[in-house]
């Protein structure tokens, strides 16, 4: 029988530390596979975030830089401007990209930096134990919203970064996908592929936001977590290509 699943060359053959049912593992594989298929590995420089994916460089088999929490797009800007022929992408959580790094996110996008951004929205801070993120949905319980996020109590509304960025002229591609079904995984791969091709074609800033399950913080089984994305999260964060 022919071998159907081949591990990408851009992914190291090691165990990851991610919880079962976590979206990060699936996304690492998707990113690595797109890079392989586009033949980009030899000129790829990734930028890892501070968050659960902080040691992504232990899993990816290409050059990677660390960045301070929220500064991945600034680091990526420095790399890409100096090495315009390399392929540079960031991989960031919602705390990293939408909270502490929001200024970097908006300004990098607004400068139209020729970069690809993989934005992992799990509606919480995974790494620090499940606090509220800017993307936490109304009513969602986290370590710092123990009674559920309440906008009327000064806790704000879920921030829709993709919609915000789509308004900027420097941004050429914005899509929101998820990884909770095989169909959605394929769609995610398609969108990330497009976001990479845009960079090769020097089109400007591309971002793919992925609604990503975090069963551990959500205190759900992997199956319940996937269901919560499909039933609750997408009501707040509708899927689809927002700008192209």
């Amino acid at each position, binding site marked *: 029988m022919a071998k159907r699943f081949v591990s990408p060359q851009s992914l190291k053959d090691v165990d990851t530390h991610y919880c079962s049912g976590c979206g990060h593992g699936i996304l690492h594989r998707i990113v690595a596979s797109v890079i392989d298929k586009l033949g980009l590995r030899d000129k790829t420089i990734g930028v890892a975030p501070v968050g659960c994916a902080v040691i992504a460089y232990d899993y990816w088999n290409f050059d990677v830089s660390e960045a301070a929490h929220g500064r991945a797009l*600034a*680091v990526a800007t*420095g*790399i890409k401007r*100096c090495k315009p022929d390399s392929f540079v992408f960031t991989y960031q959580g919602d705390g990293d990209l939408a909270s502490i790094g929001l*200024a*970097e996110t908006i300004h990098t996008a607004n400068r139209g930096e020729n970069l690809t951004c993989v934005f992992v929205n799990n509606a919480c801070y995974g790494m620090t134990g499940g606090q509220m993120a800017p993307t936490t949905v109304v009513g969602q319980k986290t370590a710092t919203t123990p009674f559920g996020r309440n906008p009327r109590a000064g806790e704000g509304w879920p921030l829709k970064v993709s919609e915000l960025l789509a308004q900027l002229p420097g941004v050429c591609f914005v899509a929101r996908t998820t990884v909770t079904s095989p169909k959605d995984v394929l769609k995610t791969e398609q969108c990330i592929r497009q976001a990479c091709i845009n960079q090769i074609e020097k089109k400007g800033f591309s971002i793919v936001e992925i609604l990503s399950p975090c069963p551990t913080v959500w205190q759900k089984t992997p199956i319940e977590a996937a269901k919560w994305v499909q039933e609750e999260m997408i009501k707040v964060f509708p899927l689809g290509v927002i700008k192209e």
Partner: protein
Amino acid sequence: MREEGREKDKVLMSGNEAMGEAALRVGCKFYAGYPITPQNELTAYMARYMVGKGVFIQSESELAAISMVMGAAASGTRSMTSSSSPGISLKQEGISYMAGCQLPAVIINVMRGGPGLGNINSSQSDYFQSTRGGGHGDYYTPVLAPHTVDEAIRLVMLAFDMADYYRTPVLILADAIIGQMMEPASFPAKSEFDKPRLPKSWALTGAKDREPNVVRSLFIKEGSLTQHNENLKNKWQQIREAEQRYDQYKIEGAQYLIVAYGSQARIAREVVDVLREEGINIGLFRPISLWPYPVTAIQRAAASVDHVFVVEQSMGQMVEDVRLSLPNKKVHFYGKAGGDIPRTKEIMEYVKSEM
């Protein structure tokens, strides 16, 4: 001022612009900065003269500027940022990361008054911050303090070579007077650094035909951060031994010694001249590297001195290093912060009252 002059040709430039030009001449290919007085002329100079030579970015903040520099440095590119005190506080995040990641870059601080927003006048109040790491974690950065525009040029050039050789951020600690004033200066063909330029095999260039390179300051495997800190400590020690820099003036037979750096050393020099004329045996010791502090040299200079007078545009910061270096000497301090600076007459009066 882009015509390539011969080395001995003098030009008239402000310290801020001269430091920018020095960076360009030594191969700086990336600059990111955020406006702040009193260093704006430097950012503007880079915006104008980096065209065709490298990348200039006006960043959205100092946090972003230093992270852009970090990315540029990670790609193996000579890179620089500049700011003044409040902006340097924000840059400490990235400086700590770069020290941990062992990335070279040059950071210029044209100091102004603090704390907080303070004011835009000359000050030397960031000595503690600069010479003790400045950000979080166990680290140092070499700190070079120019006292003339001409020296600022030489130290910026040196800073790039040092940064690359030791794989560390290097700080230029100037003050508003040095940044703003214009005086004749020349551009040497290269820095006085005496060590080789090493290949940047660690840089991120794409993992073609080699194992992937990773730029990181995170070490979570048991014992790995302890080992990393030991390695860094060995590097700091190597720098301490090789890179102490200083200047001295009329110290032969001196009974008294003034210690000052940066623009304050120019005033101190005048004090020495006037007091010498009055028959007082006094000399000047001027540290150029504030870290590593020139401990051996100051001990030598002060060997037969009775009183040491430290003069700073601060409430007393470098004086702590002088006291650490000279535990058995009588060390006096005279300083002012917040815009006013210690002037010749008042320093003379202070020296006379204490000797």
